[in-house]
């Protein structure tokens, strides 16, 4: 355990997590919009936006998967200290953090059951950049259509075909976050 493990959490958890949640809520309720979330300073390679998602939503009841290069001892210690979330393999995870390549193949993640579609994984995809342009998004939360720079479109099109099952995703880059719920209909630009 390094000293960094103990730092980087919210300074004032009740109000910081409330503000972070509103940004996360807004991002997921309005796919294609990009919000900023501040307050978290997790160890690299986790972005501050993904760190804020972890601090706001994770606790001892949410199994977490760290994919690829995100599976570092520093990050494991940080998540364990700040959230208490158990670290697990992809198939058991409620939340997964990683870059797009590290998270593939996506069929490892829980998509819920027909009677409990809420028991599906939430993927937090770390992006090198994030812009409101690229793939076309339609569906709940979007007036007409919206655009978002997705890492690929085919996996999200396949995910939508499972509706109401499927995983939900957040795309994070620095302190910015965008949401992509399973209900969104994705088309190539």
């Amino acid at each position, binding site marked *: 355990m390094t000293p960094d493990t103990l730092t980087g959490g919210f300074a004032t958890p009740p109000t910081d997590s*409330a503000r972070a949640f*509103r940004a996360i809520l807004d991002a*997921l309720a309005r796919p294609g919009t990009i919000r900023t979330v501040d307050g978290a300073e997790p160890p690299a390679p986790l972005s501050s936006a993904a760190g804020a998602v972890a601090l706001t939503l994770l*606790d001892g*009841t949410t199994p977490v998967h760290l994919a690829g290069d995100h599976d570092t001892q520093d990050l494991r210690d940080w998540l364990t200290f700040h959230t208490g979330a158990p670290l697990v393999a992809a198939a058991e995870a409620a939340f997964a953090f990683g870059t797009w390549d590290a998270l593939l193949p996506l069929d490892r993640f829980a998509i819920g059951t027909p009677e409990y*579609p809420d028991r599906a994984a939430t993927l937090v995809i770390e992006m090198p950049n994030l812009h409101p342009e690229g793939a076309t998004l339609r569906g709940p939360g979007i007036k007409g259509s919206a655009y978002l720079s997705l890492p690929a479109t085919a996996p999200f099109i396949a995910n939508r075909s499972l509706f109401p099952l499927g995983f939900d995703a957040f795309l994070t880059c620095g302190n910015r976050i965008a949401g992509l719920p399973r209900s969104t209909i994705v088309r190539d630009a």
Partner: protein
Amino acid sequence: MTDQSYNFAYLDEQTKRMIRRAILKGIAVPGYQVPFASREMPMPYGWGTGGVQVTAACLTPEDRLKVIDQGADDTTNAVSIRKFFQRTAGVATTEATAEATLIQTRHRIPEHPLTEDQILVYQVPIPEPLRFLEPRETETRKMHSLEEYGLMHVKLYEDIARHGSIATSYAYPVKVEGRYVMDPSPIPKFDNPKLGDCPALQLFGAGREQRIYALPPHTQVVSLDFDDHPFQATKAPHDCDLCGASESYLDEVIVDDAGNRMFVCSDTDFCRSRREAGHAGRLTMQEAAE
């Protein structure tokens, strides 16, 4: 002044995280009722414990809260919930729909159109639209998973067979994005057309029944009906006696022992702002003439 004995917005952080996760899953599957571990709140079931928990999980210190009960800002339920969050979260409050960022409501959608920057939180008594048709949770859950909603149409058909029209006038079932049938909470069916394509985020909390569900902004919401008996939003065929509004939802009030009655807007903020703008109804004009 914030009551420092309590955590921000009353609930502890662990509880808020659990509620927040349920809200996010509800948004991802519009109309699906997400189970959550509802807490005991310092008010009885039926007073909006579900709505209060959703509001507590969503509030930020910068929010301006409005609480309405059947459209009114000044009833016991609305006043006590507004004071509860003034004390425990220290948030600003308002009675004006346009100024609020978060509105908790019991059984009405405000008349003033909602905007993108607002969240509407509904208090829900029975979240399961099929509950009075099928009492077993195991069965209704299966019916939702199989999209088996024939029973609901039989119920509406029986209305027509018995009364000549669909007599359901509140908690009128809707279908969300062509998938889940949802109970919009006991709002009058007059408000149903405002559910769909609404710019605001709509969240529903049922405390006793431990369910949260959501309608993201601009979600397609269709009231169930038949080709030959299309859905009709109804209201009392009168104008408001105080402000003269002809397009708002009205409450009927008995005013004396002789059975005289008046009709007034159920949305008190809407009615007051119209009167302040100089509009007058039957009774206010009578008073002015006397």
